[in-house]
């Protein structure tokens, strides 16, 4: 193993086996990427069907049960199979070691194991659809989940297994960041994407096990009636909600933190400008990770939770808004007086700021106790978290995928069609979800298969928007696949970035670098590169 062949990782070994048993973080990352996008399109098809069904007030092609199953599957697939692993497992796996100048993650075999655990979880999850898909909503609230006759056990088992995949990825990344950094790469010379993955890993490790035990107890509840969550046996259903949200709220930050890291990378590179307030950005990632654990109770404001708990959780929820705000302001300041190159990844970054701001400020409404009482469990909440999750995470994910596509695949995509798709996705997304804020404020509850006739025009508007959004993703997938086979060969550094991943070839060589570089300057030190005096 002393001699490292200087060839790119695609060509190093070939054949199906070389992929299935690979220990190379880059290949594992790409396999994740494939599975994650497959899950996204599966969840997306569910979403389109849901919107189509909601075109008319009394439903037209689904029964109540089928509708319930469909929205549950949409939620479960999107949360557990797509968005939680999305950025960390795919782009994170591929780029974390490269960005800190390591040859691989700390535990490559564990990394492969995480991937296969993910696949097994996905098989369980998708398998549950065939044997009576769950209809509980992705939150599995008891006692509904313990009394329904759908395949709750299979789906909870899937989420349980996927949780372990997530934990192991977190352990791996944390150890990698701690001990695998190249010479000279001090903590404050790490790119912000690495910082955000580090913060994410902390949440993955400390929150996910609670989901594990919750789902295990739910399974015990269904199989041997352990009684802890079942009110008819003296258990406490609100306790289930505490357990569930102790994981699932921090999970929201598992979803958004890596996206914020990606944003910092893209904004800095395409503004050709050192990131504004690097340390604040790093600290705010950690702050978000910590405060994320303290706010879960805001999902329980109307559940019958104590009013003192409501007060404390409401206050802590506001605190988490502060570091998120800092990030947005710092990105703005980074663009100020930069040299903005409006390439596709940067367009997605701009879309992120636009949509995430809406998602963020509507969060302020929901954290205000009195207002939340009215808005919770309505379409307002649906719109809010889609603005944060899709408008935030998914936009950054797509942007990041375009940003690193040349590096990962070694081919350039078509810039024109990429911009068309970006525009369609941005437009379609707003058409679908903005109107849902109005619906929710007007009182339209979520998870309704049928609804009052008066809401029909608003629902129809949202449904038409979903077609535009779907078209955007279709265009994207076509030109991306096209680029794999017919794309122009990508140079090593198409965007003139200065973080480490641009210092290796496209696609990277087997162990990432021919010679691991020694790090001497800050990750975004464009001043040094451009060699110009600034005021």
């Amino acid at each position: 193993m002393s001699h490292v062949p200087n060839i790119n990782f695609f060509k190093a070994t070939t054949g199906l086996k070389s992929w299935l048993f690979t220990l190379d973080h880059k290949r594992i990352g790409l396999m994740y990427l494939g599975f994650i996008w497959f899950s996204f399109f599966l969840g997306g098809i569910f979403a389109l069907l849901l919107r189509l069904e909601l075109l008319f007030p009394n439903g037209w092609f689904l029964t109540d049960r089928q509708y319930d199953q469909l929205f549950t599957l949409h939620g479960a697939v999107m949360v557990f199979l797509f968005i939680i692993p999305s950025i960390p497992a795919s782009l994170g796996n591929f780029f974390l070691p490269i960005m800190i100048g390591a040859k691989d993650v700390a535990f490559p075999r564990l990394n492969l194991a995480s991937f296969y655990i993910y696949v097994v979880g996905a098989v369980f999850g998708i398998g549950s659809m065939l044997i009576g898909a769950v209809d509980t909503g992705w939150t599995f609230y008891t006692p509904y989940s313990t009394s329904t006759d759908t395949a709750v056990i299979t789906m909870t088992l899937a989420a349980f297994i996927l949780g372990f995949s997530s934990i192991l990825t977190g352990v791996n990344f944390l150890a990698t960041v701690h001990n695998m950094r190249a010479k000279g790469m001090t903590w404050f010379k790490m790119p912000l994407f690495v910082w955000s993955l580090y913060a994410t890993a902390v949440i993955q490790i400390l929150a996910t096990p609670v989901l594990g035990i919750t789902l295990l107890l739910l399974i015990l509840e269904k199989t041997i009636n352990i009684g802890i969550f079942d009110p008819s046996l003296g258990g406490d259903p609100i306790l289930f909600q505490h357990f569930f949200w102790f994981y699932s709220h921090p999970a929201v930050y598992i979803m958004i933190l890596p996206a914020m890291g990606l944003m910092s990378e893209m904004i800095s590179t395409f503004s050709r400008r050192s990131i504004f307030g690097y340390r604040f950005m790093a600290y705010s990632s950690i702050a978000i990770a910590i405060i994320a654990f303290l706010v879960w109770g805001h999902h329980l404001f109307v559940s019958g939770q104590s009013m003192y708990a409501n007060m404390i959780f409401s206050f802590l929820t506001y605190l988490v808004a502060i570091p998120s705000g800092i990030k947005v302001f710092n990105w703005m300041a980074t663009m100020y007086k930069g040299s903005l190159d409006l390439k596709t990844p940067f367009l997605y970054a701009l879309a992120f700021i636009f949509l995430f701001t809406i998602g963020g400020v509507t969060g302020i409404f929901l954290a205000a106790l009195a207002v939340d009482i009215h808005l919770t469990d309505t379409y307002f909440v649906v719109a809010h978290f889609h603005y944060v999750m899709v408008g935030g995470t998914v936009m950054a994910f797509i942007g990041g995928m375009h940003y690193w596509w040349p590096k990962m695949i070694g081919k350039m995509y078509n810039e024109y069609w990429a911009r068309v798709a970006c525009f369609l996705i941005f437009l379609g997304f707003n058409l679908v979800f903005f109107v849902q804020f109005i619906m929710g404020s007007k009182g339209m509850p979520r998870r309704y298969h049928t609804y009052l006739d008066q809401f029909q025009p608003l629902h129809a508007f949202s449904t038409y928007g979903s077609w535009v959004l779907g078209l955007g993703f279709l265009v994207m997938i076509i030109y991306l696949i096209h680029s794999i086979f017919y794309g122009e060969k990508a140079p090593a550094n198409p965007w003139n970035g200065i973080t480490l991943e641009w210092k290796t070839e496209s696609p990277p060589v087997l162990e990432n670098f021919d010679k691991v570089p020694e790090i001497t300057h800050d990750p975004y030190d464009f001043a040094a590169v451009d060699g110009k005096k600034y005021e």
Partner: protein
Amino acid sequence: MASATSNLSLVHSGGVNFPLAVGEAAYRVDALYFFIYFLSAVTFFGIVGALIYFVIKFRRRPDHQIALNQMTHSTALEIAWTVIPLILVSIIFVWGYTAYLKNIVPSSDAKEMRAIGRKWSWTFEDPTTGLRTNNELVVPLHQPIRLIMSSEDVIHSLFIPNLRVKQDVLPNHYTTLAFTADRAGRYQIFCTEFCGDGHARMLANLVVLDDADYVKWQADQKAASSATLPLNELGKKVSTDQGCFSCHSVDGSKSIGPSWKGIYGANRQLVGGKSAKADDNYLRRAIVDPAAEITAGYAPMMPTYAGKLSDQEMAGIIEYIRTIK
């Protein structure tokens, strides 16, 4: 009577954002909502405005290849945009919490009423008069109400958009909801915690009556309960009250349970291959012991109504089903 036949429209009443506000609680919520709305609009347009300005002004051009400035940080600026939002959200928090407390604490002269939720209907009861209504909560105008709620099966949630109040309804634990309505009329009540197939049809109405109407309504109710209705009308009333229609249609469309249309006297294909004629006794068994004979293609989910209905009421329902051809 002030109770119109249909509910006040949520979409077409009130402003762009909210349905018409009916009561103190709603005014408090709306005031805070619009305060946040204003702040949000300023923040949003500030950020997007700056974004657009930057994109136009600092776009990369042949004569502008590198950044004009590489300022890496400004502690003063960063502290400013940490502290200013912190102050703003603190104001919102205090406002939100005090408004919340005012809204949830019932006044001492509140009239206590009970609500029971089940899959998929509501029952409301006035303990002082013993009057019980299904899917219709009738309250006097300007009277503070304290609703004590519980559920018979899973978690439900009672939501009255016009009053801006909502509270989960738990099995095995009481929760309460306080409100005062200051405008007579009929308002929508939703269930907002997912509770199964009939969740979207677990609808009810809040009927707010002024004092005269309320007294008259009480008298009518008492009279109606003692009056002898024709059997099929009694059946229709009982079916409505018991929420039968959240699962059974009368127009032949398939719902959670079989439609009642034309069912009387028809041959029913049962789960397990048997079949049975839907005569009076079959229908009675279907009400008292629904799990015994399940029509093919349906799930066994109907609860038993044994003990909940009198013989006369049951006969009424069967008679009513007979009339739906």
